[in-house]
């Protein structure tokens, strides 16, 4: 063991992590575990995504059959794919809850503005990953969804950027694949590291002056992670991800993933450059939050949250 320790410093690293974990928590830190759950789901995504990449073929003609192979023929392929897909849903949901909680408690205020900004950027990349990942199975729904998304992007004059050509076709799949497995993961890992380092630097909001160790952290963290694993397993086992027919097989209309429903619904009412405003407005507001007076930020945030919930439910019901 000392041979490894001399050359790697592994034991001191473990010691440092233990020390970090035994730091005190603020008394109302129940929701602070949301960030840890998000990290857990990110790790699950990296692991299952790497496994899926062994069989996935990013080609317009073969993607669907390769996903069918994963889902139906490869041993436990269905489980890996289902965990990957469900974990994506849970990840975005947890990050949104995390965002709402941090916002409600005003934890983004000085000196944590940059922590907030890295978090907002992470949310954007995670939603981008969800969107690009949804297209990769190349079933009928995925291709129709890509067409709808390209049409929205077209309203903002960005259709060619999204499609990589004049129509939804092979270049778009290649773009989505590259974004999903290279660009977004690199960005997410870098931002997550920065986000965590900043949390370590400034401590948790409310815990700056607390003394003593905290068995509470160990308990809450472990329970949250075990609970996340249980929820993920139940979803993946009970509702394994199926695969729609290849493109063009059905005439069913498509709706985007739940996280895009508010924008989907709102975009029905606007066109042209206003769509661009719809796409850029919410992230811009999130970026501005730490620099706005608290009252204004609360008012804008509450309005945005209400709008998101109302339009989301409306979009789901429409």
């Amino acid at each position, binding site marked *: 063991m000392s041979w490894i320790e001399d050359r790697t410093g592994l034991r001191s690293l473990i010691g440092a992590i233990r020390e970090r974990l035994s730091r005190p928590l603020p008394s109302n830190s129940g929701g602070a575990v949301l960030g840890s759950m998000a990290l857990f789901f990110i790790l699950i995504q990296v692991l299952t995504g790497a496994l899926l990449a062994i069989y996935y073929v990013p080609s317009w003609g073969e993607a669907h059959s390769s996903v*069918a*192979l994963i*889902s*139906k*023929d490869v041993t436990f392929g*269905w*489980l890996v*794919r*289902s965990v990957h897909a469900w974990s994506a849903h849970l990840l975005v949901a947890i990050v949104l809850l995390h965002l709402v909680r941090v916002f409600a408690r005003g934890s983004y205020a000085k000196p944590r503005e940059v922590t907030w900004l890295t978090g907002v950027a992470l949310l954007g990349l995670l939603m981008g990953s969800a969107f690009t990942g949804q297209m990769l199975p190349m079933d009928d729904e995925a291709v129709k969804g890509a067409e709808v998304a390209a049409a929205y992007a077209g309203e903002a004059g960005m259709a060619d950027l999204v499609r990589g050509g004049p129509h939804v076709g092979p270049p778009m799949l290649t773009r989505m694949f590259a974004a999903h497995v290279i660009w977004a993961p690199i960005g997410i890992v870098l931002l997550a590291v920065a986000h965590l380092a900043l949390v370590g630097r400034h401590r948790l909001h409310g815990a700056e002056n607390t003394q*003593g*160790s905290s*068995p*509470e952290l*160990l*308990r809450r963290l*472990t*329970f949250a992670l*075990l609970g996340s*694993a*249980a929820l993920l*397993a*139940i979803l993946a*086992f*009970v509702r*394994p*991800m*199926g*695969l*729609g*027919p290849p493109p063009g097989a059905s005439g069913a209309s498509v709706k985007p993933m739940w996280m895009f429903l508010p924008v989907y619904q709102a975009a029905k009412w606007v066109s042209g450059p206003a769509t661009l405003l719809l796409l850029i407005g919410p992230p811009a507001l999130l970026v501005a939050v730490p620099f706005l007076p608290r009252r204004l930020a609360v008012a804008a945030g509450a309005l945005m949250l209400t709008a998101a919930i109302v339009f989301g439910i409306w979009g789901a019901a429409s």
Partner: protein
Amino acid sequence: MTLAALLLLTAFQQAVQDDQCIKCHVDQGAEVKETMHQKAGVGCVSCHGTDEIVNEKHRRTAAFRPARAPQIASLCGSCHKGVLDAFQPSDHFAAAARDDGNAKHRSTCSACHEFHTTVKPDRIAILNRCLECHEKTSHEYKEGAEGFDSMEGFERTLNHLEKEMRRLDRRAGIRTSDLASSVEDGRGARTQLQITQHGLHWKRIKAEAAASADRATAAYNLLAERERRFGHRYFGLGIFLGLLGAAAALVARRARSLRKETAA
């Protein structure tokens, strides 16, 4: 290009000629409208004759192709070659070829098929046609009815298999790719039986239909078995959740003792 142009031209001429016929033969015009034959470019003249039709009042009706039993089969067979091959060795073909004016010996294609409407004849209608010549207690009638029964049984089984494949194709965890060929083979066998039935070899048809039905049933059962086996995943879920529960209990105990230490 040349072939496509030629086909277009033929279809165009056909339409022009058909229009002339239909001016008077309104009922027949309605019967052939939008049918498979019309879509395939098989017009009035394809069966009823060509040269003599275009004169003004077509008085030389004798020059029209006579719709006699032996000619009908060869006329249909010029396109439906496989069916004619199957039909030729049959007693029905032989009877029709005698062409002796006996109404019972007009057992050619038109005995069962409506070639104006091209509606696929259903089996009950065909069996009723059989009764026009054969007794219900006759060997021929019984054999034919049994042959139809076994073909129908096979087709039902194949339909079930196709439906099950469509359902399970969308589901995760259940392998279907290796059974796609079973469905294809079944479809091929169905088409083949629909052709060979014209030869009236009912024993062979029954045996082939039964064998095909057995193969489709085996594939169907295999799918059902795979779906049942996929249900075993819940045992795995149970074990996993049990492990998580045990871990949670350990952590809870550890946290309790830590709290006691801190308090002390």
